[in-house]
């Protein structure tokens, strides 16, 4: 059997669009509490607040409830300056966890 991928690695990358309007945060591997500082500094360290946030889950393997808490922290941060948060490229597992917590009411999920 192939070895399980991505269980030991976690990394967060972020980049701002050229016009400064969109912040994309990509989460690789497991998304859990151990990411919280990195995750938070990805959006708090910006000089100017973007008008939109995109969380790219293409390479996110698993997430737990603390990750859900972190997403909500970002949402409230974004709402403070009228920005919206989209969660994109979710795999089936990730979508399922988001759906159980009714996150589709709070985020644009795709």
């Amino acid at each position, binding site marked *: *059997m*192939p*070895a*399980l*991928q991505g*269980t*030991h690695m976690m990394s967060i990358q972020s980049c701002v669009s050229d016009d400064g309007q969109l912040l994309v945060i990509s989460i690789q591997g*497991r998304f*859990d*509490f151990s990411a*919280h*500082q990195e995750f*938070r500094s990805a959006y708090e360290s910006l000089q100017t607040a973007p008008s939109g946030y995109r969380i790219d889950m293409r390479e996110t*393997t*698993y*997430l*737990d*409830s*603390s990750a*859900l*808490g*972190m997403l*909500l*922290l970002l*949402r*409230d*941060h974004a709402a403070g300056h009228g920005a919206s948060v989209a969660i994109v490229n979710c*795999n*089936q*597992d*990730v979508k*399922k*966890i988001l759906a*159980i*917590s*009714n*996150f589709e*009411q*709070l985020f644009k999920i795709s």
Partner: protein
Amino acid sequence: MSDNGIITILIADDTDSDRMILESIVRKSGHKVVTVRDGLEAVEAFAELRPDLVLMDALMPRLDGLEAARRIKALAGNELVPIIFLTSLSDTESLVQCLEAGGDDFISKPYNRVILQAKIKSFIRMREMQRVVQEQRDQIARHNQQLIQEQTIAKQVFDNIAHLGAMDAPNVRYFLSPLAVFNGDVIVAAVRPSGSLMVLLGDFTGHGLPAAIGAMPLASIFYGMVHKGFSLEDILREINQKLKQILPIGVFCCATIVDMNFAKGRVQVWNGGLPDAYIFRAVSGKVDSVRSTHLPLGVLDDMNFKADCQQIEMVAGDRLYLWSDGIIESRNEVGDMFGEERLMSVFRRSVREGRQAHVFDAILRSVENYAGGERSDDLSLIELTMLAPGAALDCPREFQASTNSRQRYGGLLEWSMKLELEPSTLRLFDPLPLLLNILVEVPGLKSHSGSLYTILAELYSNALEHGLLDLPSSWKTTPEGFERYYRERSQRLEALQTGYIHFELVHRLVEQGGRLTIRVKDSGNGFEHQRNIQAADAVRDEGKPDLYSGRGIPLLQTLCHSLRFLAEGNQVEAVVQWGEDD
């Protein structure tokens, strides 16, 4: 003919003097001579002695040279026995008659010794050349026969593997050239223990043996894993990895794999490099296409391979069509391709004519007519019809859906384990990957790894954070509290000196799946789980999804079949019931 170029020559002439002159010329060249006096004797002598060359007078009593030549040629069959006519005739018509009767040349009387000898030599060379050509022809024929024999055996081996499958299921129609495996085309179909039908159409690059060679491991992995209940993703990954490992660079397999679930009225499709698959809707007559979104099998290593599928609803009577590019790339006599537009028009015509049920035949006929009445060896076509929920396909007895089939697989089937983690471990070690890696060794459980991870993570962080570290979730109501919570978590964990977290995992097989019981016990004081559960209910029922915490228990309640807190709340038992097909 003997090796030193000496041959036996039959001389037929009714004139004694001519015969003797000829005989002496030929003997002087070193050849053996047989002489006869008329055509009848010539035919008899030929039949008896099989000379290599015949010198024959055209006009002879009893049977003339022309008729004798015809009979001798008939007796010689495929063997080249040159006949040179000896003639005093010189009119064109007589000479032509000699050649038409089967003569290869003529020589006029009186004989010119030098020319006669040269002609004999020339015919010896021609005869030799003919012999070599025939020998090579026979050799090629033998090789070809051997190749066909080998292909037949290879195909038998392949068929023995492929016939484990469900190709004969009533909702499957397919067309595959008898020697398709040597064109690189392969179709395999099998029924999973859960009753869904899995089908793979593959098209290896190249032709002949190199193209066929990958079909064997592909079929054998496919059947082995489908019957054991592995998920489509697991099977794809395994085939991809195996092909990547064994095939030379540049040889790979374009493939479409389908998992047709009758109970759910749904198909999962993965298309890597084959033409669009079509879904033909029974009611509306509409055609939806399923595009290739992946690279072919055997190209990427496992890290980069993507096994995500497209999920498509289908109602009973909807049909799914898969084909290799042989259909679309069939060419007419001027070299134009059949193309997708013509293919699509076959569907439209069938709707207009109310003959939707006959699309399969219409496609084959249409491609055949287009290609000028020839059916190419390269066409592969499958039609899969969605059945009503509850439809059961027969599968070979040895693979009947039961726990028995899984029991033959050497994975973790029925087992239990206990793991107790103590402070020195808890401080530095994350046990979740370890536990998850054990769980995915259960055949069929790998496709549930996302939910399993979340369940394990929630149970573990509850035990650690609330049980051992005594952290209150109530802190997590503000961003600062959230920060504080995790800062405290790492400080208290670093300082942890006593306590334990105890995992007990028990797995049992049940019909078409399994039941995993996870018990987690910690050395903490427990917590007011009743109140927590009530709070969790409130989060769920009152639609308040925006609190930063309190989400763990509702997640567990939804993901698990049952969830019970025991004792003081420092013990929890979560039961996960899983089916092979969800």
